[in-house]
């Protein structure tokens, strides 16, 4: 709390209203350095990913070295430094899904759209991601299409879902 009183936090990088949400999170934790992960969650929730500008702003606001901010951002799988496409397809590769053939689903998407997990197609339309476990193991193999969990996937089902998004 003291550090906050001694020095005003820097102004947000832009007038974008979403920075207010980020600022509110940091304020709630009194700009203490331990709020770093919570703050990055707030940034990612507001903007969809963490860019250099955001990392620098967070580092300056919480007064932690940029290297540490970057270290945390890259250590945790949940944070992404790249913007996502308009649609996201997350395929679970947890053990139950693996045993029930999730790799076939993944290979189908990789082959058709020539992308690897973590990539976005050139037209920014589709991001392919994998998840360690969605916790929907009873419904394996599972995936998340734009936030909607879909169960008992097959390659046809996956391709059908994605085809709906394609121009």
């Amino acid at each position, binding site marked *: 709390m003291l550090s906050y009183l001694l020095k005003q936090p820097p102004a947000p990088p832009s007038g974008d209203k979403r920075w207010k949400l980020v600022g509110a999170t940091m304020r709630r934790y009194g700009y203490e350095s*331990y709020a770093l992960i919570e703050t990055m969650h707030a940034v990612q929730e507001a903007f969809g990913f963490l860019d250099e500008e955001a990392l620098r702003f967070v580092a300056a606001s919480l007064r932690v070295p940029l290297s540490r901010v970057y270290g945390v951002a890259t250590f945790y799988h949940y944070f992404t430094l790249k913007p996502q496409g308009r649609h996201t397809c997350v395929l679970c590769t947890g053990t139950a899904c693996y045993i029930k053939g999730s790799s076939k689903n993944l290979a189908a998407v990789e082959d058709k759209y020539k992308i690897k997990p973590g990539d976005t197609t050139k037209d920014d339309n589709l991001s392919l991601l994998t998840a360690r476990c969605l916790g929907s193991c009873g419904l394996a193999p599972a995936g998340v299409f734009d936030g909607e969990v879909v169960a008992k996937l097959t390659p046809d089902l996956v391709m059908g879902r994605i085809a709906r998004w394609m121009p």
Partner: protein
Amino acid sequence: MTPEELNKLAATTRKHQQQFAHQINVCVGTGCQSSGSAAVLEALTGEVKKTGAQSSCLVRGSGCRGMCASGPLLSVDPEGVLYGPVTVEDAPDLVRSLSEGKLTRLVCESDSPFFTRQCRVVLENAGRIDPERIQDYIAMEGYSALARVVTEMSPGEVLEEITRSGLRGRGGAGYPTGLKWSTVAKARSEQKYVICNGDEGDPGAFMDRSVMEDDPHRIIEGMAIAAYAVGAKQGYIYVRAEYPLAIKRLKNALAQAKRDGFLGDGICGSSFSFTVDLRLGAGAFVCGEETALIASVEGRRGMPRPRPPYPAVAGLWGKPTLINNVETFGNIQSIIRKGADWFATIGTERSKGTKVFALTGRVANSGLIEVPMGITLREIVYEIGGGIPEGRRCKGVQTGGPSGGCIPEALLDRPVDYESLAELGSIMGSGGMIVIDETSCMVDVAKYFMEFCMTESCGKCVPCRTGTSQMHDLLHKITEGEASLDDLDLLQELCEVVRNTSLCGLGQSAPNPVLSTLRYFKDEYMAHIVDKQCPAGVCQMRHAVEV
């Protein structure tokens, strides 16, 4: 809220619920929601209103019944009829069935072994209460244990009760809970912390998620009792960011508990104060390790540090910290409410109580189960699980995820307890149980887990960082049909080195999937290496020998 007020509220809520001749409990857990239960709940609510039955029939969302594969599930109480899978179109028929009798075409047999062989302690309220309403929890005697603890018991008595119950940590390692609590209680410090480890990173496991989603107040009550016993004032629940529903339910439950005086200052009219904050994980398996988790709560990279000092002595911000798993905290209120002696009657000599498992893989009834310790794996797979579908042969059962091992079919008659599973080269683990049939290649399974450990290794210590990657390469070579017998020796040697020299549990247990498959399924390794064949036909051999 004083104990008297609590009893009164519980009685009024129960009375209110009994006014309804029927209760329809629709599962709104993650599993059933992915099968569309939210729409079913809405349709039923609408249908009940339309037919004017809202005064005699209560429709509400509730927790997981366990049989996620037949979702969306719902139950009609007090008859106790279970229906599934239910669709929106079934709503009119279901509401009509309340007066006309069972809707046989949708009945899900609730007297099948899947339900009758279970023993529900931690999951006792799952599916029977609305997880978003604190009154429902209170009506099931919720918070009565906390009220009793803070008004009638001394911290020493609580410690004594937990120790006597024989409860052991449900995170996997099985450290006696009473002993852990006593260590923190003995530590001298003005500030102590209680942390609930809800970083369920083990792929194929979703027990903790279910408890957090279906009965969040149970965890808060368990933590508050623990805090009272060890002398802590601040608690944290560390949850995976990948569990949005659990986070939502916990946030809601924390606000309710605070509002009703089960958290905050002067809990239940006593002088005891305790607050709980939520902390989100960010997708790092290693954060399930307690020292890594602490680093993460402090806002740093989740990297473990050598122990001792144990967190019980120097944990969060250097203060004595009690870390228990979600399921461990879930047991506490039952132990206090029903007594240590009752708890100790369940289970085996050295492993007391029940264990929740996520039974998945090649098994007919996959889902969430809670069984008494000491039950055999065969009973779980063939009776509760209903055996292997499509007439295939069971090859083995994998417990403990990437830190555990594969137990072959021949040894399924061993009981489920901490010691027996360790003897078999596996671990109890947090509760993932994956049934593997003959369509899976054990070398490939070992490679899958090694790939997981390799990616999840935090990189702090060399044996784990480099060893897992070397072991993965060797396994890859074997599955490609390019390995020699020397490679197999090297793999075995590496397993020993990584196990003995890694810093934390992740590295120390990373070789387990390899060691256990080597122990029981060596013939499959030999087939890959010598015959250049994959018996299960999973691995694409580069140098397949023409037969």
